[in-house]
């Protein structure tokens, strides 16, 4: 009989990943509503130590599959491991972060278990015994609420969507599980993993993003945006048009086909508000829009706006911020 909320935990830099604390926070809310428990499963190489930390964040039960061969995420190896755990534990819900590994592992496991999964959710709740999953669709132009009738219900959750768990004194159990590689050789191997250094603050980590679109008019304008970003200790983003025109590298693109961000402050200059862009920034805490067109759709999503030429606004705004100290 399926019960409990299981999360797929991840370790980053030898510690519990931020998304894992968020999943533990979300899973606790769901488990309390069900009157059930939270389990966390970790798969990897050298993860058993950091995984124990999940106890302090509310996991009643921690399961670890720790083996040097599992050092890199590889669906060929991870999916059978997790499938075995899920079939044994029979969780009611299984939650993943919508991460490099989770966004791949979740759907793969779902198809292999012949069950549904809803990906990139921004909110989860319980109705009776069913998981209610909310996610943006149509590039953020609408939100969809899904559920499923399958016995195991699964979701991947967008980063920074759930409130992270606080440290508690719930002391859960820890159970290592042996890694049993399948009979057949994996058809896929990860040769290496490369971190590419980006200059300054990364988009997804930035607390402030100063973003420009078609209205910026060329690469020179983005130098002004960089000045403001530097002043606010943030980074520069760009719309698809700005990147397609080569004004900014595609690594700085915010939107459906770029990076999805949720900074504390998103300043959009010369951006009209196409749905594919808004899906990338609509979860920002505060959106400030500057656009010379008072009817630009971005003003419907922004919290604060100024109607006028972005360059004049940027210069005066920067001077004022410096003057305010």
């Amino acid at each position: 009989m399926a019960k409990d909320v299981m999360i797929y935990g991840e370790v980053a830099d030898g510690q519990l990943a931020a998304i894992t604390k968020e999943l533990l926070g979300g899973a606790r809310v769901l488990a309390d509503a069900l009157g059930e428990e939270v389990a966390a499963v970790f798969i990897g190489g050298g993860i058993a130590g950091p995984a124990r930390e999940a106890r302090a964040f509310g996991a009643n039960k921690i399961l670890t599959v720790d083996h040097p061969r599992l050092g890199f995420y590889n669906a060929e190896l991870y999916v059978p491991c997790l499938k075995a755990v899920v079939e044994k534990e029979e969780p009611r819900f299984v939650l993943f972060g919508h991460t490099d590994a989770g966004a791949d592992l979740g759907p793969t496991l779902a198809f292999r278990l012949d069950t549904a999964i809803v990906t990139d959710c921004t909110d989860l709740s319980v109705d009776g015994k069913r998981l209610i999953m909310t996610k943006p669709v149509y590039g953020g132009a609408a939100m969809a609420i899904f559920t499923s009738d399958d016995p195991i219900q699964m979701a991947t959750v967008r980063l920074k969507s759930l409130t992270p768990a606080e440290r508690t004194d719930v002391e859960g159990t820890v159970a290592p599980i042996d890694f049993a590689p399948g009979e057949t050789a994996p058809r896929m191997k990860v040769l290496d993993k490369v971190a590419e250094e980006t200059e300054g603050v990364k988009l997804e980590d930035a607390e402030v993003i100063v973003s420009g679109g078609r209205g910026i008019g060329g690469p020179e304008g983005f130098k002004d945006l960089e000045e403001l970003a530097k002043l606010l200790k943030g980074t520069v983003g760009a719309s698809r048009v700005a990147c397609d025109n080569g004004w900014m590298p595609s690594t700085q693109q915010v939107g459906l086909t770029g990076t999805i961000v949720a900074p504390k402050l998103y300043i959009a200059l010369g951006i009209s508000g196409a749905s594919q862009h808004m899906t990338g920034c609509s979860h920002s805490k505060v959106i400030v829009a500057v656009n010379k067109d008072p009817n630009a759709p971005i003003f419907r999503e922004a919290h604060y706006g100024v109607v006028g030429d972005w360059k004049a606004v940027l210069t005066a705004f920067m001077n004022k911020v410096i003057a305010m100290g």
Partner: protein
Amino acid sequence: MNIVVCIKEVLDPETPTDSFSIDSANNALVGKGKIAKVLNPFDEQAVEAALRIKDKLGAKVTAISVGKQMDRVVTKKPVFMGADELILLEDEGFADGDSWSTAYAIAAAIRKIGQYDLVICGRQAADSNAGQVGIGIAEFLGLPHVSVARKIDVFDGKARVERVTCNGYETVEVDLPALVTVTNELGQARYPAIQNIRMANKIQPTVWKHTDIDIEANRAGKQGRRQKLLKLFQPVREGACEIVEGETLQEAAENLALVLRKAKIL
């Protein structure tokens, strides 16, 4: 070398968000006016990835899509870009599917095609934003898959794939046949070339109904759905946008700084 590319037509994601409204009777998003359909941007890059392999090694590239009453101009774009064949899984039975039923239908069609070394999909569709169909096709066909690729090199019965991660990339080697989903970091897709046009005009889509690919009606389209859509709604931002004004634009900009400081945002 035979490559199958999966494509989907979507409402143009460059459309402003306020051009849509919800048809709550049908739980569907509709345009307030007519909204153009385009090829899903990630699928355009999937076609590009296939054509880059074709340019280098030679390959037959077959594009495939599923739905009802699909736009013939949009779905034919891969052929104008240089694909050799277009298969449309098209009948009422395919309407309103989810990731599960779509992947099931495409996998059945690929089985019918028979010859394939590589299946390439976009990482996700611009409308459903799910990123499941490619993975599902791989699972139904029993193929290994690599998701979110920015580069695919084929050699010696293998593909070497660069998979994009949050801070860089991984190099993954996978035995063929395999499925790869591609992401925008692959780079700009080519424009349809003049020299392809005459050839492309001659290529007519092959249309298969669900009975042609031998799938049960209860696994196709709406009947095959696993995800139950309870509600579709447009998020309403609490409180309208506060337009900050001033005697001059400069003053408005200064007032913006003051307002943000007062709200403890700066």
